[in-house]
């Protein structure tokens, strides 16, 4: 046990014998609506709604293309497409299509962070449409393929096997 762990253990012990401060307010499930936005790679947390790449074209052009380029090639903002087959080379291009291991991350990130100048301004439906559109730009889904809570976790990302979990592989001392 490290000194810090001991300190924490002691603190916890003291807290217990002197009755824990217990100053948090209980939270009801309703309170978490709109706050708990985490999405897991298994699709946990994905909201109702659906979209296809075709549905997403207009909104992408309107809200995303100025920074990311119409084809997702990158402009003032980073590229969202391309780079397939470049990862082991001298000039790797890491994009959603060439690098990202999970499609769920795309929905999650667009919903919480994009468009960069107006984060959290999109509806879930729009986020599904844009997710489908960016996946289509990368040739990962067809233009009419429905992206929703059921299909998104099943999407096969090209670089899914490209990551080594260093935490699980660490030597424990």
């Amino acid at each position, binding site marked *: 046990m*490290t000194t810090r762990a001991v300190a924490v253990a002691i603190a*916890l012990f003291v807290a217990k014998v002197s009755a824990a401060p217990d100053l*948090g307010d209980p939270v009801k499930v309703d*309170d978490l609506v709109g706050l708990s936005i*985490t999405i897991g790679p298994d699709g946990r947390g994905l909201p109702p709604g659906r979209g296809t790449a075709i549905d997403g074209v207009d909104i992408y052009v309107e809200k995303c293309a100025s920074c990311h380029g119409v084809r997702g090639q990158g402009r003032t903002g980073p590229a969202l497409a391309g780079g397939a087959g470049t990862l082991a*080379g001298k000039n790797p291009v890491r994009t959603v299509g060439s690098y990202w291991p999970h499609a769920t991350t795309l929905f999650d990130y667009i919903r919480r962070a994009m468009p960069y100048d107006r984060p959290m301004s999109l509806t879930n439906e729009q986020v599904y449409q844009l997710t489908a559109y960016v996946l289509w730009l990368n040739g990962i889904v067809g233009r009419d393929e429905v992206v929703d809570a059921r299909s998104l976790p099943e999407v096969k990302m090209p670089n899914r096997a490209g990551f080594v979990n260093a935490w699980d592989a660490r030597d424990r001392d």
Partner: protein
Amino acid sequence: MRGTRYGPGVLTRFASVSDPIPVAGGGLLSRRALLKGAMVMGAGAALPATAADEHLGAAMAWQKTPGRPPTGYGNPSRFESAVTRTTYHRYGAIALGNGGSFTPLERLRGTITPNGLHFERHHQGVPDIDPAKHRLVVHGLVRRPLRFSIDALGRYPMTSTTAFIECAGNSFPNTNDKPPQVTCGEIHGLVSCSEWTGVPLAMLLEEAGVRADAKWIVAEGADAVSMHRSIPIEKVRDDALVALYQNGERLRPEQGYPVRLLLPGWEGNMSVKWLHRLELVTAPVQARDETSHYTDALPDGRALQFTFEMGVKSVITQPSPGWMLQGPGYYDISGLAWSGAGHVARVDVSADGGRTWAPAELMETAQPFAFTRFRLPWRWDGGPVRLMSRAMDEREQIQPTRAEWMQRYGAKQRYHYHAIQTWQVDDMGEVSNAY
């Protein structure tokens, strides 16, 4: 950097040192020799006998003018106005919030970074959070989901810990093909060290009642990208802190006001600022910032994920680029070392490009997970010299050379750079970055 002169302009230079004992090539001296020498020098600098008589005539202007009254919040001397962070932006005008600022390591001494000079790295700027409206929610795989106000957190028993925070991307300029000619801080200054005070996260989780299937915690900030990371629960048992204070005062906005997470020794991005949500989960959620970013490219095209601990590292801060050596003679080499493993066990210094090394003195303030200040006296003979420092930590991990580090990773790998830094001193006394 060539030709730049700034600040004090010269390093502290000792006129004489008693018994200098060479301990390695390039003029490195015994770490025991110098402070004694300095003391001798101080003792010899007595006032001339006539000084008292000339007292009035020699008085400085500020001795003859009433000083300014006390102020509500203090600032550095106006003569220190050049000691600032260097800011940068990743994407320019379309995303000014995506950027950071470097701590001017070469301008500071000791081991604590002043709050106004702590490095910054934000993905979407600094939010302007009203603490009265801010809540920290703990939920997910817990028996009792809880919500804490800042006032409530302020009533918990607090602990303090001195810890460095280092951005995973610190020192990335040195992954460039050519050594960038910028200051030490502009290369290595995405690291700072503070005393952090707050509530052990374990205490809050104990109250919420963590379920047995909870193995990871998602920590999320209330900034405009809702930056989030997955953290193994083991770290919480060790030393995770819900920090409210930084060097005795409330966190600065750019450091996560009103509340941030502190994970000592782990990549800075995980010490989530503006912390507002902690969700207990079974497995990592594969956030953008643990997949697209903060993953480490390997030569075969694959990438390491979840490399949390920051590697053992050191850098000589004085002298470093921008400093000008004022002719041959004695100088005090000083630098910082740190390791995500805990204690820095040893720092060696070389003044001949790594041919020979001598152990530096580790200063008394050394603590685990904090900056360790090291020093070694040196007599510069006036010729070209390559200065290096190499740290070893409590796990006997040794700082790699740049070539070793570069070989381990794929192209454009910009995280977890912790290779040995070489400073080239030329025969004019100018210091530059060298590989």
